[in-house]
């Protein structure tokens, strides 16, 4: 555990002490804020709840954010050759993968967390608002954390499969986009195919939770998906010892 904590700390330091990280955060928060204001202006009566508008605003930029954060996790280490030296130190593959994953997740969570402040900033600047729906807010951010966790694990696995950051970025972006466009695709195809696609639709899950509808199916999907991606990442890393 101590080794994991040390490596996690190293990852966090890598993220939070770099100017690129703060630039990424600033750009993400600016574009998300702009998207939120835009959706507010388009939210004609009767309209969607504010928690849903926040979910839409964050979701729109999530594939890019996850791609930026995960594309270099292993690809950069492999390109520079530091992965081999990392594997020679007495740490297990699980510890390496989990430390990288926890570092990336922590960074994305810190980046997204300020968007919850929108609901408190609006009344502060004089907007007349209905009472705060804490249940929907918590449900929305909980599923967002699970989706981010799943997408980050996918990005990490893809980063492990290539040594080229550009290839990693393109592959990661495509993979992360798939769950976010599945809702639209599911509406365009007839049942029962639409039911299967809707089961995988991250955008639909996010909107449902943001309305306050907590469902165990997306929780099972993202937890199992995250564990699968991390398990595969460990196996891929492990197989490098034998090549």
């Amino acid at each position: 555990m101590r080794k994991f904590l040390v490596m996690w700390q190293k990852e966090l330091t890598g993220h939070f002490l770099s100017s690129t990280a703060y630039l990424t955060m600033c750009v993400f928060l600016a574009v998300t804020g702009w998207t939120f204001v835009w959706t507010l202006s388009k939210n004609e009566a009767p309209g969607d709840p504010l928690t849903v508008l926040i979910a839409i605003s964050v979701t729109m930029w999530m594939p890019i954010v996850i791609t930026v954060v995960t594309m270099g996790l292993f690809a950069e280490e492999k390109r520079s050759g530091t992965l081999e030296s990392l594997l020679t130190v007495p740490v297990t593959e699980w510890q390496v993968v989990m430390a990288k994953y926890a570092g990336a997740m922590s960074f994305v969570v810190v980046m997204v967390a300020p968007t919850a402040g929108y609901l408190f900033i609006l009344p502060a600047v004089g907007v007349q608002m209905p009472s705060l729906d804490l249940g929907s807010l918590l449900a929305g951010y909980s599923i967002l954390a699970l989706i981010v966790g799943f997408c980050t694990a996918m990005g990490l696995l893809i980063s492990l499969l290539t040594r080229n950051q550009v290839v990693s970025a393109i592959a990661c972006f495509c993979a992360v986009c798939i769950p976010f466009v599945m809702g639209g695709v599911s509406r365009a195809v007839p049942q029962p195919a639409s039911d299967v696609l809707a089961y995988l639709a991250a955008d639909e899950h996010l909107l449902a939770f943001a309305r306050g509808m907590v469902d165990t199916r997306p929780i099972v999907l993202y937890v199992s998906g995250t564990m699968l991606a991390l398990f595969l990442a460990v196996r891929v890393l492990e197989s490098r010892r034998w090549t």
Partner: protein
Amino acid sequence: MDLEEPLSSTAQSRWRYRRRRLVTGANVATAMALAVVLATMINMIGARRFFRWDVSQERYYAMSTNTVQFLDQIQGEVAIDVVYSPEHSSFKDLRHLLDEYSYAARHAASTVDLRIRYIDPDRDLGRMKELKDRFGIEERNLLVLSVEQRRKVVQNSELYTVWPLTRERIMFHGESVISSALLNLTREKTPVVYALKGHGERDPWSFHERHGYSKIARLVQRDNIDLKPLVLAAMKGVPADADALLIAGPTRRYSDEEAQLISEYIEKNGRVIFLLDPYVKTGFEALIESWGVRLEDDLVVDTTSLSGGREFYVGTFGEHPVSERLQNTLLMFSGPRSVEPAASEGTNGVQRSDRPKITGLAMTSKQSWAKLNPSDRGLGFDAAVDRRGPITVAAAMERGAASGEAMEIDTAKIVVIGDSDIVGNAVLNSGAGGNVGFFMNALNWLLERESIMGIQARPVQMHALTMDRELYKRVGLALVVGIPAVVAFLGVLIWMNRRR
């Protein structure tokens, strides 16, 4: 020989190394495949056995206890076809509500198998054809609920109460409408309504643009009602399987014997809907008067008439199950006759303890009058003989109902509407107001098609914020500039700290 031995040893070790790689690779691949299979299985189980909770403050789509209890009682396969485009303004409400139905049915104590199909009329042409072949339904924006061969259609207009002028939705009736439709489908046999013929009545099988009744007949049949023709004189009576009679716009008088047959049918707790036009002696005047409603030989004129003709809208309704959902709706009448409840409620009930209960269903405005003998003096108001509005143009009568009970048992019911054009093809083609809803409500009331009591309509949720340009500027400044600026400031602080 000495040289060959080390070579052989190298090849052997290379072979051992390759075998080890192969075994390891196969091991890793097997573990990965097993992990994928395990994750798939977990998700398949998770998709079948799941739980949902509504943690929102308003619990807007949460099922009422009445619906949950009802779903606990029904059995067998129930199908709901949602014929809506996903872009339709009602789709979201319906999807969320039907998700709740699906979940409640899945966890119901009974063995109900609720199957919900979403049919996009623009894309899912195969299923639209299936609907047409099976139920004769080609329209969009409706729900088709079916149990075996019985079906019931819920129109989009039934789901919401809207302000007539702005068309703004104010109440959502989704749960009460769907639950009531399910209740009727699962509990009732297909009711039989006989449409009387032989006296110039409106013909439900006629497609005539002006006089035909084909449009309303199709809607009636679509609502799981069996509509059959009946020539009373030929049958010598009302068939035993008749649940109600439809007498729509006779132009010739019924004989006394025929009127007597109808009267006897009503006496045996029969149900009749009369649509009677002005200036026509139908032979039912005495019968209807005996139930407490006076049929004058008049024509109702309203100064709010459309384009100076005889058509006008009626927007005042009495308190009655037929008209309770029609508030904020307008009915179009085309020169009706008055159907005025008499001061004393019916000679029929004078000697009886169960006097008929009479309710005026639709009343004209104060700017209207009932014109007696219009041919003599034109249509203008004559204070000497004409009667000032409001004038009742539709009434409901019921005898034998025990007040205060939710369900009526063995009661005789009559609805009289002073205009047969109200659901004629011409009026329905014009898309006029709530005429169809009014007629269907009347028929459903006569047939005692129950509605589940106690399911409240929900006020349409208003989430849109009212903000002026200045407020948008402030919000934009706070969110697009303020929050990123705080993060940038933190970044600069850390950067400066590191430099030191």
